[in-house]
């Protein structure tokens, strides 16, 4: 009802999607907490929440797509969406920043201190080592945790130049294919777009398969787990959240592929495509940091 105001800026009518989303989030979180506490209804609430959330996402985005196709969006609206996406990605960067921070802190400060490294300026007291953890030696990646009775260390660590290197290659290639697809959009070449996106999706899926394989190896052969001490902790939390983002990104790519197939984009109007490609590049860049700091150095 409001889009008939005199404003040139498109103002959406009241929408029931957000409140539904809030309720769904509540249900998800409430369910998750009960699940963690071993209450039988927890998983169901959680699943219900997720289902409603998905329904909300489809409904909401569906409405946006409809409005977009109806031509309600002028340049200014487009800009709003762009700013929205850019700063959303920035917030994601900061989220990863927290976990990278934890990794750097462990490597630069905690492990040297526990191991009695006197050369580090970040060691507050070397007595931590001599009085509490005399048997611990500072070494990254940590194979022998300070207290092996509580946190049994991994048998082996992840080698950078095996699967991870291949995964790097996969993601870098996918960065190229999506850019290629983008050119296709700009040049209005449908085939080009579809193939580019399809390749990107396939690369995303192969990345995930490789990662799944890697996780299985880690758990079964290397005894490298979430509870293998700080190395396992940072390894799985960082690569895990990245993997989650790749999964999300791949789903988004699939949606975009379908929309491209339905001819939703034209050279002037393809914000959704760009948003997804930014997201994909972001996931890509995070991986490079992961590769360097988690696997390699």
């Amino acid at each position: 009802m409001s889009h008939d105001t005199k404003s040139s800026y498109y103002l959406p009518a009241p929408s029931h999607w957000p409140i539904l989303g809030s309720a769904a989030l509540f249900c998800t979180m409430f369910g998750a907490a009960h699940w963690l506490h071993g209450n039988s209804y927890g998983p169901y609430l959680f699943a219900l929440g997720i289902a409603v959330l998905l329904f909300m996402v489809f409904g909401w985005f569906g409405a946006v797509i409809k409005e977009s196709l109806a031509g309600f969006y002028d340049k200014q609206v487009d800009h709003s969406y762009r700013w929205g996406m850019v700063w959303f990605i920035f917030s994601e960067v900061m989220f990863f920043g927290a976990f990278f921070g934890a990794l750097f802190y462990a490597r630069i400060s905690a492990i040297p201190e526990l191991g009695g490294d006197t050369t580090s300026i970040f060691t507050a007291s070397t007595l931590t080592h001599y009085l509490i953890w005399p048997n611990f030696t500072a070494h990254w990646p940590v194979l022998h945790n300070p207290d092996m009775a509580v946190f049994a260390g991994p048998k082996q660590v992840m080698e950078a130049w095996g699967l991870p290197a291949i995964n790097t290659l996969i993601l870098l290639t996918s960065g190229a294919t999506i850019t290629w697809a983008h050119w296709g959009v700009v040049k209005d070449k449908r085939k080009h777009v579809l193939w580019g996106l399809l390749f990107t999706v396939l690369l995303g899926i192969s990345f995930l398969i490789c990662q799944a394989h890697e996780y299985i190896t880690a758990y079964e052969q290397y005894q490298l787990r979430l509870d293998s001490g700080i190395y396992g902790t940072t390894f799985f939390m960082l690569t895990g959240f990245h993997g989650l983002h790749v999964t999300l990104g791949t789903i988004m790519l699939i949606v975009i592929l379908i929309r491209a197939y339905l001819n939703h984009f034209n050279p002037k109007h393809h914000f959704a495509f760009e948003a997804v490609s930014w997201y994909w590049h972001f996931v890509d860049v995070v991986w490079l940091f992961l590769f360097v700091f988690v696997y390699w150095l």
Partner: protein
Amino acid sequence: MKNNFPVFISRICLLLGSWFCISSAYAESRINMPQGVTPMSHDIYALHMMIFWICVSIGVLVFSVLIYSLIKFRKSKGAVPADFHEHTVVEITWAVIPFLILVAMAIPATKVLMRMDNTDDADVTIKIVGYQWKWKYEYLDQGISYFSNLSTPVSQLNNQAPKNEWYLLEVDRPLVVPIHQKIRFLVTANDVIHSWWVPALGIKRDAIPGYIHESWARIEKTGTYRGQCAELCGVNHGFMPIVVEAVTPEAFAAWVQQQTAGKTSLPPDIKKEKSQAELLKQGETLYTTHCAICHKPEGTGMPPAFPALKGSVIATGPVKNHIAMVLNGKPGTAMQAFKEQLSDEDIAAIVTYERHAWGNDDTPRYGKEAGGTVQAAQVASQRAESTHEKLN
């Protein structure tokens, strides 16, 4: 309303004044930081007063301009607004001057901090371990080690008895240290973060589980110095005081002598059997100091975090589990292992007490395992067993 205000304010003042008079029966209120008895605390005090006066002077300056303007340029007095709204030189000046003041503050602060950081060449080294909710002191060179618990009786906490002068600031065994010697403190914790704080020494160090952080003191005067845990560490954070007894080096040496001598000359005779009455009496006192803070004198605990012992499955079930619980605690909960804190005799007495207090020996109700007496020998054998298990 203009007329009402003075009345109202004077009433508040009256109210406050009367409270002051009533409450002056309590200990005297201080309004400033203690100057303390160590070089560190003097340095801190000097810094504190310096920054305080700097802030006061800046405040006086800024506030007088403000008050002057508020009075002088009232619209009701016909003030007409001027039209200036920018002046770069002024802006830069009032950024640079505070900056210089800050530099002047930072220099002495840095010096003091560097001095504080140097814990080398200590004469006495004491490791301090925070537990929920007590402190353990280990004299690393002298081989002395003991726990220090709050000694204020529960009746005072619950307002059933008049509070004594050092209410909440008194312990059963204070930390004893010599004056004029450099004491190095190594602070850590057993469970959660605590903070060892004695204002008169100018020391506040967080006790972080798994890490050691250092501090030092050279006390100038004999005396008793009190402090409290200064990091929220759970329910009884407000109830883990610190008392430091600073004595002359000679007195300290004598104290050390006495502590170490006491240990070797009196090997506890665990073979000796005690009567139930004896155990119960001893057990009750020990229970009050060591267990009542969580499980409450009435044995009701504070469920669900701290289970009741009254009628508890363990305290009325097989005695072996009961002893094991006290010896080894339950890792990851506030129920800590008491085997380092309590002797076999002590544990025997406490367990016996718990099994009889609050109707726990009601065998018709709780089954035939309830009640019974425990002797030190039994605890000793279980202790040996558990140590053995751990070695495997």
